[in-house]
């Protein structure tokens, strides 16, 4: 299976066009550390959003903290804007179980109460464990449970499918 050969840049352009239709250029964009932030950087530029890009690190909101602990180097979340009553585009690289998005939404709501949150992901793969769906998707992939898709970046962005050890 070699589905990673698709053109990421084309995908991003299509996503940006779709997102502009949904939210316009006044929306606040938040990328999830690290891969989601890389994707968000591209989308932010393509959409020419007016407000600076935010970065979310969901380590403190993970549901598996008491098993896996803290990341060795946690980069702090940085939302350089007020989220209250604003349209938010939340960006991640891969939507898999949905747990990351659950954690991200919880964190965003600790900064305030947005008007709406739209989810954009570069890759939507199977394996959902929570009722989470993307509004804008770059590419849908069907993978076996032991397969992982990993984004490398930030320049250039490349996707790789790996078998878990």
């Amino acid at each position, binding site marked *: 299976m070699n589905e990673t050969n698709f053109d990421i840049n084309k995908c991003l352009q299509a996503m940006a066009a779709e997102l502009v239709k949904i939210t316009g250029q006044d929306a606040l964009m938040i990328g999830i550390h690290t891969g989601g932030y890389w994707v968000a950087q591209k989308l932010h530029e393509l959409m020419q959003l007016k407000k600076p890009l935010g970065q979310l690190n969901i380590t403190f909101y993970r549901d598996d903290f008491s098993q896996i602990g803290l990341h060795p180097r946690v*980069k*702090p979340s940085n939302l350089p804007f007020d989220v209250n009553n604003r349209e938010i585009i939340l960006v991640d690289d891969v939507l898999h179980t949905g747990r990351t998005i659950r954690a991200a939404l919880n964190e965003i709501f*600790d900064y305030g109460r947005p008007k709406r949150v739209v989810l954009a992901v570069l890759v939507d793969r199977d394996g959902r464990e929570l009722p989470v769906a993307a509004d804008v998707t770059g590419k849908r992939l069907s993978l076996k449970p032991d397969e992982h898709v990993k984004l490398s970046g930030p320049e250039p962005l490349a996707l790789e499918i790996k078998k878990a050890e």
Partner: protein
Amino acid sequence: MTGNNIQLDEHGRLKHFLTIEGLDRSLLLNILDNAESFSGVGDRAIKKVPILRGKTVANLFFEPSTRTRTTFELAAKRLSADILNLNISSSATKKGESLLDTLRTLEAMHCDMFVVRHANSGAAHFIAKHVAPHISVINGGDGRHAHPTQAMLDMFTIRRHKQDFRELRVAIIGDILHSRVARSEIHALSTLGVSEIRVIGPRTLIPRHVETLGVHVYHNMSEGLKEVDVIMMLRLQQERMRSALLPSASEYFQLYGLTEEKLALAKTDAIVMHPGPINRGIEIDSKVADSSQSVILQQVSHGIAVRMAVMALTMGHSDARAGDGDAD
């Protein structure tokens, strides 16, 4: 291999935080980096992260303390833990069995972490050795031995103002002999690789053989403060004035109190630190304590972030430990 360091689990991760000794540079930097992340939580609309939700922390204070206890309490609350404050007078209780009984009682209440402040050196270590395997112990100051979270919040404060530890000359001034803060600071500074550590104080308040820790001893402020980047003042416990260690508070201030004139001997951008509570006019002049070079109040705020980091790091693998210990 983690050797016999009780603070680390079998994977070399922090399980208890009892002393700076035996912890390597990368572990200390990891605490500081995580504290940097947690420091942003205090600026948000909701000053809480859910990382320790459902965990119970017991503040076991066998010795009175205000800022250490309250900043631990705030740190636990910002991590969404539940916290019990127990002020246990140490005078009536004998160590040993009664202390163990207290521990067993708290274990039976399903506590997950103990923060221990005790007048006896080694108390936190003793407790860590005897608690159930899923419980983490943090030393909030034990006798003259160690006060590791204070040392780490001081390191955090230094790093906020100075870029590279390896280029710094640091002076610790005052009652080194009785100070657990000084001991932990010396270990932290030397692990982080500062270029020189000086201790300055009267002969009676400098422990013998302190040079073996790699510090330079000065008895004269005007010599010791030259070219210094960081000045760490210590509290002079007034209760000890009655013993024969010091002639009088005013003479002490004359010789070792930090005044504007003495501060001018250090580098112009030197920062002044103090673990608090400060004795104005005894170890530090009011003008210096309130000057732009003083970072004393920042130390207090940083204490919350550093204690959040230490609590989160020690509790990070608690589920794995509560099971069969077969983590990863």
